[in-house]
């Protein structure tokens, strides 16, 4: 019976993963391109969900890790002509290190102030990329990054690239879920539900924050490194605050702490703008429709797939938002 429970828990993920995996048989290059963007966004957004949904940190600067990942592989290729498989380890090390670095102030800073730290961190990373001309070429961008090269095999076909990305999506999902179900995850949830109670129980908070930030950064970095090879071009302007906000939206639409939901959120937000393209009357107002959809989705039902997880970030704050009826009952 354990198996059926497991299947039920991951049903949404299995449906998405299977349909994504067979999709390239039916799609054209354009649709495949959207699916690739969505798959990259899935990895990126799931990594943020670990931070937000399980770690309880609203990050406004997740794009920083994405850009570090993209630039690590791009810079290594540019200066040393190393293939992707060689760059992969440095990508993990450097983004992990960046995550570690960002987690250090978190020993003192909590709650709402974390948001501004992540925002500032992202701005600083972006400014370094913009102005460190000898290494990153600054605003000139790095041109002509080749397709992913895995131990001598070049993924020329976009389908191959898609399957590589999907491999990472599945890996991310499995690792994230494993993390959440492990002792580490239980402690994390205890911390984000009630930090003080957790501390009283003898759980040391800070080491967990370090771990969450590092892992989250690594996966965002992997997504970024794939992005660089997909686009064959990186420039600092791509990794602006809007990228972070888009990522937050994906996580929130899918439901905090719900990784399969995040995948749907990513699919939804990547397909929506392209879908809106076909309505001619929306031509210049496509993004208005996009904004409206965001508001309405939040309004009707905050998470599309519906699993109302206990909101990790704000059990404390949500008291302020509590329903009137609930309040009446309390009285």
């Amino acid at each position: 019976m354990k198996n059926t429970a497991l299947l039920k828990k991951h049903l949404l993920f299995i449906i998405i993963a299977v349909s994504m995996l067979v999709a390239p048989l039916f799609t054209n290059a354009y649709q495949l391109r959207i699916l690739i963007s969505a798959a990259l966004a899935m990895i990126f957004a799931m990594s943020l969900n670990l931070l937000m949904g399980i770690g309880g940190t609203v990050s406004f600067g997740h794009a920083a890790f994405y850009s570090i990942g993209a630039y690590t592989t791009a810079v290594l290729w540019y200066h040393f002509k190393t293939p992707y498989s060689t760059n992969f380890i440095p990508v993990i090390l450097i983004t992990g290190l960046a995550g570690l670095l960002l987690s250090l102030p978190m020993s003192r800073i909590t709650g709402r102030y974390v948001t501004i730290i992540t925002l500032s961190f992202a701005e600083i990373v972006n400014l370094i990329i913009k102005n460190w001309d000898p290494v990153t070429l600054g605003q000139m961008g790095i041109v002509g990054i080749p397709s992913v090269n895995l131990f001598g095999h070049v993924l020329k076909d976009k389908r191959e690239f898609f399957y590589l990305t999907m491999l990472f999506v599945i890996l991310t999902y499995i690792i994230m879920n494993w993390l959440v179900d492990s002792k580490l995850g239980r402690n994390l949830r205890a911390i984000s539900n009630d930090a003080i109670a957790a501390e009283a129980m003898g759980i040391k908070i800070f080491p967990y924050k370090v771990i969450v930030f590092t892992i989250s950064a690594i996966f965002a970095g992997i997504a970024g490194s794939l992005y660089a090879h997909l686009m064959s071009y990186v420039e600092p302007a791509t990794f602006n605050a809007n990228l972070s906000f888009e990522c937050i939206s994906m996580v929130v639409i899918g439901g905090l702490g719900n990784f399969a939901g995040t995948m749907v959120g990513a699919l939804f937000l990547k397909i929506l703008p392209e879908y809106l393209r076909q309505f001619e009357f929306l031509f210049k107002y496509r993004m208005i429709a996009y904004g409206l959809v965001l508001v309405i989705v939040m309004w009707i039902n905050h998470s599309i797939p519906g699993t109302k997880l206990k909101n990790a970030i704000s059990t404390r704050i949500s008291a302020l938002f509590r329903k009137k009826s609930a309040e009446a009952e309390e009285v």
Partner: protein
Amino acid sequence: MKKLLSLLLVVLMLITSFGCTKPEDKVESAADENGDFHIAVSLPYTGTNASYAEYIDMGIKVALKKLENEGWLNGDGTGKIICDYYDDKNDATEGATIATKVTTSTEPYYLLEVGSFASGVSYPCANIYKEAEMVQYALTCSKSDYLATSGDWGFSLSMTQDTAAARVAAYDIKYLNFDKIALIYSNDSWGLETCKFYTETAEKLGVQLLASEKYDDGQQDFTSILTKIKQTNPQLVMCFCAENDIVLIRQQAETVGLSCEWQVSSKSRTSNVLQNLGDLGEGLYGIYAKTKDLNDPVYIEYEKLYKEMYPQKFADDNNTTQKYADQGYNCMMTVIWAIKETMKTGTTRQAFRDKLATLTDFPGVQGKLTFATGRKILQIQYLSRIVRGEDGKLKWVNFEDILDTFDVDAVAGLK
């Protein structure tokens, strides 16, 4: 249930995001069954560069109107050119998605793509067009290695910066005889390149720049760097900036009391700048790529149509056509020319490219257009200045006979 419904919604959206099966390998002609040609236009219709997109779009539509008046390609109302317009928001990812769509679409089958305004968009897309062997007519891309990056398939109507910026330096130093020059440029690929080539040429001509200050996109308060520049007492401040920024910079220079001569590059030698600067604009130098010859029949015809189609814009711009609209028009006219030339033998993407690359002395609205070796566009550039006309109104005046006495290419070391 809700999960399944939401998934269904997403799948439905994906299916209806239209597009068909894989493209056929061999195409006899790019025309569809009605004999019409399809062109994809991808421009930043929204975002901070939307004003440029709008003007280019206008120029393209004027050219299409002209063709329509002539009875389209065959002269009998058949052989239309149909443009599909895409908004890339000046965003690399969106641009690349559009490029993938455009290159693989069969219904309609696109002959070429026009647009990709900034290099941040034209570069990631160049790769996609190169692989698909389809022309990317990035008419405004002026980055010096664009043509090399795009393989054989990239075209641009803008001169590359190694030529353009070097000429500006030559004019400033040897013609206007300034030797105390400060530089302000935007921190983007265009600004960095222009700054590099300008500084190099200036040094070659024996002038060391007093200051060179860059600023990031979205910056609006320039008072601090202007105060800093003021300390160096320049005779001339050269600005490689977008037109919106030069207005702010010039106004704020007044606030901090920096008085000297000012110059902008060809990007900002626009009627917009003239209008918004008001009296402050008087004396501002600019660079102009080939004057409009008002008696040129090509120009007269263009202006007439432009005035008919966009009377308000025409009046707003002091009864002139806008420069970027001219470029859009030129671009589409050369496209029409290349299609007509290849129609007898079958206009495929390859044939179209080969023909376009041979463009020589094509009568455009900014003078003759030629793609030299390596598709490099050759244009003459004049010095230009805002002066007060006899009617008391400010206007841009081009130094049209400057080249008779001053060989700018020789001075700039381009020959």
